[in-house]
């Protein structure tokens, strides 16, 4: 009587599903970015430190670079700051900051007190650039290749390990492809 085994079989499937759901490395809030493989949205915003200067990713064409979204209100951004400073020391790729939903004075203070890992920091006053990039929190870190395409998006705080295992191999691959 196979049909009396059906409920049990369905339950086994449910248990497999739940076990998968409990996987600790799963982040239920993570969203795959539809931007992957697509051209990076362009922006031209003022520099946090110097409002008269323009920060634009148009000048980075042909280069592999990293865009890091942060804000002084964001506790997790404070967590990743040391890691970002260390990564900046390696001078592998330019790191562009996107200061999101923030106040300029606070951001300046943050960068002077904690150190500035960024080659340039764009100030997103009204959140429009963030919308274009599909930002929904902070910190978020994007990797853009030499052809100007977004090739990777990482959410949650950056660490040396993540840089080592997720970013460096992709940067190397992007450079090989670009060369």
């Amino acid at each position, binding site marked *: 009587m196979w049909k009396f085994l059906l409920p049990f079989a369905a339950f086994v499937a449910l248990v497999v599903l739940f076990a998968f759901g409990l996987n600790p490395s799963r982040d239920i*809030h993570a*969203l*795959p*970015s*539809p*931007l992957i493989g697509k051209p990076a949205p362009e922006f031209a915003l003022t520099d946090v430190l110097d409002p008269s200067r323009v920060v634009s990713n148009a000048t980075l064409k042909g280069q592999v670079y990293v865009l890091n979204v942060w*804000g002084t*209100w*964001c*506790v*997790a951004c404070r967590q990743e700051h040391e890691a970002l400073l260390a990564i900046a020391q390696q001078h592998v790729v330019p790191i562009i900051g996107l200061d999101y*939903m923030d106040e300029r004075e606070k951001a300046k203070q943050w960068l002077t007190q904690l150190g500035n890992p960024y080659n340039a920091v764009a100030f997103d006053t*009204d*959140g*429009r650039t*963030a*919308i*274009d*990039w*599909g*930002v*929904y*929190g*902070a*910190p*978020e870190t994007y990797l853009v290749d030499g052809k100007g395409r977004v090739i990777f998006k990482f*959410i*949650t*705080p950056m660490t040396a390990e993540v840089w080592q295992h997720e970013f460096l191999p992709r940067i190397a691959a992007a450079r090989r492809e670009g060369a």
Partner: protein
Amino acid sequence: MSVQAHLRLSAFALLLACGAFAHSQSAGSLDANGQLENPALQARFERITKELRCLVCQNESIADSNVELASDLRRQVREMLIAGRSDDAIFKFMTDRYGEFVRFGPPLSAKTLLIWGAPFIALLLGVFIIYRVARNRSRQPLDE
């Protein structure tokens, strides 16, 4: 107010960090009550913002959420409506940036066939089961 999406949210309490709605202020084409001057546009605005998921508090619509991202997105929707963009164009703008997850109802596609089709599959299956059981029982004697 802070965007907490990427933080491990504080434990030990029901997570209702994402409180009630708020109002975004945005200039242009709004009347004294913050409504779009064109009632037809306002109606579309209300419908579209209910249909879009706030990605910070993922089970709230951007119409109901008070986080800044939701308010920025409401402004975006409003501006696109004023600019004369169609509903589809607005939804496409959002899904291009945030993915299809941003819509509460996923568009019908091969991938979502099992979601949208499920009620009809269930209905057919139900009719089949009722037919089988009822036919079977109607052939049995009525009295114990």
